[in-house]
């Protein structure tokens, strides 16, 4: 399974997002520290989930980082994040 498929699977299971966008930004980071020759090292995610309701930005990002801890400890160097509640997703 690709890393992005795994990210999708984990976030979908844990956060039941109403919208989830996963962009692989790895190509934009070529030659820069943390870039992996096989790609899938840099991602940008937009996650819209009702579970973010009442959580600060830091708490929301921590939730996502916790779910993806295994990926972040491995090949994934960076995950850009936009975390919104359905009401904020306009």
């Amino acid at each position, binding site marked *: 399974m690709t890393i992005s498929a795994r990210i999708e699977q984990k976030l979908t299971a844990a956060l039941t997002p109403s919208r989830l966008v996963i962009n692989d930004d790895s190509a934009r*980071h070529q030659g*820069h*520290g*943390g870039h992996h020759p096989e790609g899938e090292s840099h991602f940008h995610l937009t996650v819209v989930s009702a579970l973010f309701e009442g959580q600060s*930005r*830091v708490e929301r*990002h*921590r939730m996502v*980082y916790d779910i993806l*801890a295994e990926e*972040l*400890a491995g090949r994934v160097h*960076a*995950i*850009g*994040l*936009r975390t919104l509640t359905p009401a904020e997703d306009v």
Partner: protein
Amino acid sequence: MEASVADRIRRDISENDVVLYMKGTPIFPQCGFSAAVVQVLGQLDVKYKSFDILIDPGLREGIKEFSNWPTLPQLYVKGEFVGGCDIVKEMYQAGELAALFQAKGIATAAGA
């Protein structure tokens, strides 16, 4: 994490109002995400202390554990963790970062 690293972080974030843990230096950031935060702080004209975690492997691992945050850069204001690159940028765009500095009595371009 060595106790001394945590002690050092605790001291640094209490002795400096604004602290940025980053890759590289404000003049030569070694990572686009660190560069973005440097740029925001520059826009607000805030005085801050920065630490280059690339030359300090103990600090690099220590700060992640200390903040319970797996990535860098990391911004601290008055001893409190504010966030990483995305949060700092979002807060800046929403005017919340300037408001935070103002609330904490830290001089910015807007407040000058």
